[in-house]
C-alpha cells in the first residue's frame, strides 16, 4: 500500500511538473536524450532519431488520448515495447477507460522511468472522441501545420582542406583541397496534417561540398516525401524517400534498431511498415513509392525504389559502397551516384487473435557488379548485381511468454535465423532470450538486424536480458551476449568468439534526485596489434563503469554529474585506463523564453581503445555523441530561444581542447593547433 501511495504521489508531482511544462521542447529533448543514451549504451552505435524526434515533437503538440488509442498509434512512441503496449491496451480493455493518469502505474510493466517518458505525449480524454471528420481541402489548409528549418554550421578553425594554395584549381583537381566552403547548410520544409498527411522537402550541403562552382551547382543532397496514412483501407502510401520496416531486419533495414541497448525489452525493431524518410542520411533510405492496404486482419504492402548510390566503380564493377554521403573532393564527386539500385519488395502480414505472421520479399538489382577485392575474410560476401531475399517473421503469445522471430534466406544461398521470447513471470521481472544464427553466405544488402558485427552474416550468438524492479525506486537491467564468428572477419584472421555483458542500476530517490550506475565488460578476439600487424589473434578486453547523478533543484534547472572510467588492453596487451568527468547544467527561465544546456568535461583516455563516448544535447534534428580520446577537455553551450510565437532559434557552440597534441585531425581535416570549435545554428518557422 505504501508503495502504491508513494508511486501515486510521485506521479502526481510528475504530472504537475509536466502540466506546467506542457509542449516544452525540453521535455522532448530530455526523452530523446534518455532514449539515445539507452540505445547507444556503448556509444559506438550510430543512430538516426530524426523520424522518432519528428513523431515525439508531433505528439508533444498533439498528445495521444490514452482512452481512445490503438496499437499503431502507441507504436509510434518507440520507447514503448510491444509488451508494454499490449499491457496498456489490455488494461484499457479490462477497465473500459482510465479515470486518472495515476492509473498508469497499475499497468503491468509500467515503472516510474517509463511513465516519466510517456507523460509528455499523452492525455486522458473521452472514449468516444471522434478521431477525425471527413477531410476537406479547406480543413487541411486550416489545421495543417507547416515547418521550415534552416540550419547552418561550421568549424571556426581552418582545416587544411580549406587552405589556399598557389594554385587552388590544381590542388582541387589533385584532391588536396576541398571544392567547397567550410559551411554546412540545410533546408527542411514539412507540412503535416494530424497523422494523416505528411509532406516534406529537404536540401543539404555538407561542409566542404561545393554549393555553386565549376564542379557542382546547388545543394548536394535533395530529398522529398509524401506520406498518407489511415484513409479507409489505405493504411499507408509513401512517395519519394521512405523506409520499409518489416520483420526483424534480416531482409530490410529497419528505421530504428535498439539492439543491445539498456532498454532490454525493446531488443527488436518495431514492425512499423512503410514510413517517410525525413532524415538527411544520404544512404539509408529507399526512393520511389510504396503502399500498404488493409484487408480485414491482413495487411499487404508493396514498394518500388530506384535510386543511385555512391561507389568507387571501375568499368562495369565496383568494390564497395560509399555510405558517408560526403562529396568534398573531386574523387568523391566522381564516385557520386555511380551505381543504380533498384528494389522491388513486398510484405504480407496476417493478424491472428494471439499471433502475427508476415512474409517479406525484396529483389535488389544493381547497375554494376559488386566485386569486392578478394580477401580471405570476404570470400563469402555477396558478389554480383542481383539479389533476392525473403523472410518469414512471426510473433505469438502463449501464457506469459511472447515468442518472436524471423527466418530468412537469399537467392545465392545462405540463411539467417533470429528467434527469441520475452517472459514476465511476475510483474517486477522481465526476461528476454534471443538466439541468432547467420550463415557466412547470408549477406543481404539491405539488412540490419540484431548482431555484434557490422553485417548480418557469419555469426551465431545467444543473448539474455533481464529487467528487475527489486524494491521501489530501483530498476536493475542487465544482459549478456555470447557470440562466435564461424569464419574470418576484417582484422580477425581466424574464426573467433567473444562475449559482452552489461549491468545497470537506476535509482530514483525522489522527483529531484536520480542516479545511474552502469558496468560493461566485453572480450573479443582481434589480430595482434604490435609494431607489426600479424595474423595471430589474441583476446582483447574492455571494462567500463559509469556513474551519473541527476539533480533537479527545481523544475527549471537540472544538474548532471558523470564519472566514467574504463580499462582496455591496447597494443601488446598493455592495460590502460580512461577517465571522463563531466558536469552539465540545463536551465530555463521563468520570464524569458530561453533555455540552455552547458557542459564541461575533462577526459584522459590516451589510447584509442580507451575512447569514451558522451551524448550531448544538440540543436533540433541533430545528434552528437563525440568520441573523446587523448587528453583534454570539452565544453559546449546549447541554447534555444523562442524569439516569436512561431519562430524558434537554436545555437550550439562546442570546443574541444587537447593537452597532448599540437594538431587535431589528419589529412584534409587537419587543424593546426590544439583546439577545435564547432558552431551550429538553426532557425525554425512554424505557420
Amino acid at each position, binding site marked *: 500500500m505504501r508503495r502504491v501511495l508513494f508511486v501515486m504521489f510521485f506521479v502526481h508531482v510528475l504530472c504537475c511538473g509536466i502540466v506546467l511544462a506542457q509542449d516544452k521542447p525540453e521535455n522532448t529533448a530530455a526523452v530523446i536524450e534518455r532514449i539515445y543514451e539507452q540505445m547507444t549504451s556503448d556509444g559506438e552505435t550510430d543512430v538516426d532519431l530524426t523520424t522518432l524526434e519528428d513523431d515525439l515533437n508531433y505528439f508533444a503538440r498533439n498528445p495521444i488520448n490514452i482512452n481512445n488509442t490503438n496499437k499503431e498509434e502507441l507504436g509510434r512512441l518507440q520507447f514503448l515495447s510491444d509488451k508494454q503496449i499490449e499491457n496498456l491496451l489490455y488494461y484499457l480493455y479490462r477497465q473500459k477507460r482510465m479515470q486518472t493518469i495515476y492509473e498508469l502505474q497499475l499497468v503491468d510493466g509500467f515503472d516510474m522511468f517509463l511513465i516519466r517518458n510517456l507523460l509528455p505525449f499523452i492525455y486522458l480524454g473521452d472514449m468516444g472522441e471522434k478521431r477525425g471528420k471527413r477531410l476537406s481541402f479547406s480543413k487541411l489548409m486550416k489545421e495543417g501545420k507547416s515547418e521550415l528549418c534552416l540550419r547552418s554550421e561550421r568549424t571556426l578553425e581552418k582545416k587544411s582542406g580549406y587552405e589556399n594554395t598557389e594554385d587552388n584549381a590544381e590542388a582541387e583537381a589533385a584532391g588536396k583541397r576541398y571544392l567547397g566552403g567550410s559551411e554546412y547548410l540545410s533546408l527542411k520544409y514539412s507540412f503535416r496534417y494530424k497523422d494523416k498527411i505528411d509532406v516534406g522537402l529537404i536540401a543539404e550541403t555538407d561542409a566542404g561540398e561545393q554549393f555553386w562552382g565549376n564542379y557542382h551547382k546547388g545543394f548536394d543532397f535533395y530529398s522529398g516525401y509524401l506520406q498518407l496514412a489511415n484513409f479507409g483501407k489505405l493504411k499507408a502510401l509513401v512517395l519519394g524517400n521512405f523506409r520499409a520496416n518489416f520483420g526483424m531486419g534480416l531482409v530490410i533495414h529497419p528505421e530504428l534498431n535498439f539492439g543491445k541497448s539498456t532498454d532490454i525489452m525493446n531488443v527488436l525493431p518495431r514492425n512499423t511498415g512503410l514510413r517517410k524518410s525525413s532524415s538527411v542520411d544520404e544512404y539509408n533510405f529507399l526512393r520511389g513509392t510504396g503502399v500498404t492496404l488493409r484487408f480485414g486482419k491482413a495487411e499487404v504492402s508493396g514498394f518500388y525504389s530506384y535510386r543511385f548510390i555512391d561507389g568507387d566503380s571501375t568499368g562495369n564493377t565496383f568494390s564497395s559502397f560509399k555510405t558517408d554521403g560526403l562529396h568534398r573532393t573531386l574523387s568523391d564527386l566522381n564516385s557520386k551516384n555511380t551505381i543504380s539500385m533498384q528494389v522491388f519488395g513486398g510484405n504480407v502480414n496476417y493478424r491472428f487473435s494471439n499471433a502475427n505472421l508476415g512474409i517479406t520479399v525484396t529483389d535488389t538489382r544493381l547497375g554494376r557488379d559488386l566485386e569486392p577485392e578478394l580477401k580471405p575474410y570476404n570470400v563469402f560476401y555477396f558478389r554480383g548485381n542481383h539479389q533476392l531475399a525473403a523472410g518469414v517473421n512471426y510473433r505469438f503469445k502463449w501464457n506469459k511468454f511472447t515468442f518472436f522471430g524471423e527466418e530468412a534466406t537469399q537467392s545465392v544461398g545462405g540463411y539467417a535465423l533470429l528467434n527469441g521470447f520475452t517472459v514476465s513471470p511476475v510483474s517486477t521481472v522481465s526476461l528476454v532470450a534471443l538466439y541468432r544464427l547467420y550463415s557466412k553466405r547470408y549477406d543481404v544488402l539491405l539488412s540490419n538486424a540484431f548482431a555484434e558485427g557490422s553485417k548480418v552474416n557469419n555469426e551465431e550468438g545467444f543473448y539474455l536480458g533481464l529487467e528487475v524492479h527489486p524494491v521501489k525506486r530501483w530498476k536493475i537491467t542487465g544482459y549478456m551476449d555470447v557470440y562466435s564468428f564461424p569464419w574470418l572477419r576484417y582484422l580477425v584472421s581466424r574464426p573467433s568468439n567473444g562475449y559482452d555483458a552489461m549491468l545497470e542500476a537506476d535509482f530514483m*530517490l525522489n522527483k*529531484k*534526485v536520480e542516479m545511474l550506475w552502469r558496468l560493461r565488460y566485453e572480450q573479443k578476439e582481434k589480430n595482434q596489434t604490435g609494431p607489426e600487424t600479424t595474423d595471430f589473434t589474441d583476446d582483447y578486453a574492455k571494462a567500463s563503469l559509469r556513474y551519473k*547523478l541527476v*539533480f533537479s*533543484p*527545481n523544475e527549471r*534547472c537540472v*544538474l548532471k*554529474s558523470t*564519472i566514467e*572510467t574504463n580499462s582496455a588492453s591496447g597494443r601488446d596487451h598493455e592495460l590502460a585506463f580512461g*577517465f571522463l*568527468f563531466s*558536469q552539465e*547544467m540545463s536551465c530555463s527561465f521563468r520570464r524569458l523564453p530561453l533555455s540552455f544546456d552547458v557542459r*564541461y568535461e*575533462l577526459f*584522459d583516455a590516451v589510447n584509442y581503445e580507451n575512447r569514451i563516448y558522451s551524448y550531448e544535447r544538440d540543436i533540433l534534428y541533430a545528434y552528437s555523441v563525440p568520441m573523446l580520446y587523448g*587528453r*583534454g*577537455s570539452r*565544453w559546449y553551450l546549447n541554447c534555444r530561444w523562442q524569439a516569436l510565437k512561431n519562430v524558434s532559434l537554436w545555437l550550439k557552440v562546442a570546443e574541444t*581542447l587537447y*593537452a*597532448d597534441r599540437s594538431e587535431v585531425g589528419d589529412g584534409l581535416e587537419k587543424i593546426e593547433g*590544439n583546439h577545435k570549435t564547432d558552431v551550429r545554428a538553426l532557425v525554425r518557422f512554424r505557420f
Partner: protein
Amino acid sequence: MKKCLVNIVFILVGLFCYSQTASVLPKSYSAGGVSVSQKGDWQGFDNPALLAVRERCGLSLVYENRFAMKELSTQQLSLSLPTPLINIGVAVSRFGYSSYNEKLAGISFARTFDELFSMGVQFNYYTVAFSRSLGSKGVVVPQIGLLSEVTPDFCLGLNVFNPMHQQLKYQEIVKDLPCLFTIGMQYRMAESFRWLLQFDKEMSSRLIVRSGFEYYPTKSIVVKLGGYGAPLTPTLGCGVMVGGFVFDVNFERHPVLGITSVGALRYNF
C-alpha cells in the same frame, strides 16, 4: 647546495603531488584534503561555490609547510563578504622563496539559487617570479564551482580550475598551469559524523581519490582522519572553535618525502 636540494625537492613535489601542480594553492586542512564539498567553509582557491552559502564575513589565514622546509611553504589570506545579492571573496597566496616564487590573487563571486544549488566563479591572477634577471610574468586563470545540496545530509561539490588550459608563456619558457577537475561529496551519516569523498583529475596526471571522516565529539571540536593517493598518504587533523575563532591543523605523511603540516586560523565576524 641548499638551493640545489631545494630544487630537487621542488621537482619531487611536482612529481608526487599530482593535483597540486600549482604549489601556490595551499593544501586543504580538511580530512584527506577533501575540500570541494565542505559546505560553509570557503578556502580561498577551492570551490568558489562554497562562498555562496556563507552568511557572515570571514577572514582566514592559512600556512602550509611542506616536508618541514620553509622554502616550500605557502601562505594564504582570504576574506569573504556576503551581500544580499551576491557573495564576494578575495584571496591571495604566495609560494616559494626570493629566487623563485609564485603568487596567486583571486576575486570570487558566488550565489545560491533555490537554496539547493549554488554557483561561483573566480578570477585568479597567477604570477611567477623566475629570478631577478628574468623578472616575472602573469596570466588570468578562471575557476568555476558548483555546490548541490542533493538531500539535507548529502552535498555534492564540483570545481574546475583553469578550464581553458591557460599557459604561462614568457620568452622561451612555457609553464603549463594545472587544468584541474574536482568532484566530491559530503555525507552526514550522523549528527556528529561526516564522510567526505573527492576525485581530483588534473589533465596530465593520474586520478587522485581522496576520502576522510570528520568526527565532532562536541560542537566546538572536530577530529579529522583521511587519506589520498596511491601509495596512500594518510592525514590527521583537528579543529577547535573558540568564540568567533576557528583554529585548524592538519598533518599528512608522504611515504618518501615526510610530513606536511597545514595550519589555519579563521575568524567569522
